[in-house]
C-alpha cells in the first residue's frame, strides 16, 4: 500500500504537504508559481500521481530552502 504522496509506480515519496504546512501553510498555487508549473500539476506531484523531472524537483526543494532529499525520498518498488 502506497503512502500518501508516494508514486506507486516509481517508489518516489514526497513530503510536500508537510513542508507546505511548515512554511506557514503555503498554498499549492504559490508553490506552483514559484516552481513554474500549474496548480494541478503541483497537486498531482504532492498526491503521488506524477513524478516530476529533476529540474522541477530541484525547484520545489529550492522553494522550501531545503535539500532535494528532504523533499523527495526513494524506496524500492516491490518486484524491482
Amino acid at each position, binding site marked *: 500500500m502506497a503512502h500518501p504522496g508516494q508514486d506507486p509506480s516509481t517508489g518516489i515519496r514526497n513530503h510536500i504537504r508537510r513542508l507546505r504546512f511548515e512554511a506557514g501553510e503555503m498554498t499549492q498555487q504559490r508553490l506552483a508559481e514559484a516552481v513554474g508549473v500549474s496548480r494541478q*500539476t503541483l497537486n*498531482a506531484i504532492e498526491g503521488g*500521481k506524477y513524478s516530476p523531472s529533476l529540474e522541477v524537483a530541484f525547484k520545489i526543494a529550492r522553494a522550501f530552502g531545503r535539500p532535494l532529499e528532504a523533499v523527495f525520498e526513494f524506496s524500492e518498488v516491490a518486484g524491482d
Partner: protein
Amino acid sequence: MQPSFEERSVWVQLFSVILVLGGYLVASARLMRAGITEIAPFVPLFSVAVVLLVVLLGVGHAVAAAMGKPEKTDERDRLIGWRAESSTSWLLATGVVGAIAAILLRGEPVWVAHILLASLFVSEVAKLVVQLVLYRRGV
C-alpha cells in the same frame, strides 16, 4: 479540484471533433451508401465541417479560458500529450495502410479519402480520451 486549462482544452477538442468530424463521417457514409462515388459532392460538406470545427474550437477555448485563468503548458501536460500520441498513433498508421490497400485494389478516390479521414478521426478521439484518462488517473 478544477481541471487545468490544458485538460479543459482536451475536453473542448474531444467534443468538437466527435460532433463535427463524426457528423461529417456519418453524413458521408449516407452519401456513399446512396451510390455517390464522386469527390465533388463531398467538398462543400467537408468545407462546412472544417469551418464549423474552427468556430467550435474557438468558442470552446474562449469558454474554457473564461472558467479560470489559463496556465502555461508545463512538463506534465507535455508528457501526457506525448504518451497519448505514442499509444494511439498506430490507429492513423493503420488507416494509411488501409488507404494504400484501397489504391492498390483500384478503389474509388472517395473511399481512399474517407479511409484516411476516418482513421484520423479515430486516432484523434483515442488520443484525446487517453489524455483525459492520464490527467485523471495520473502518469
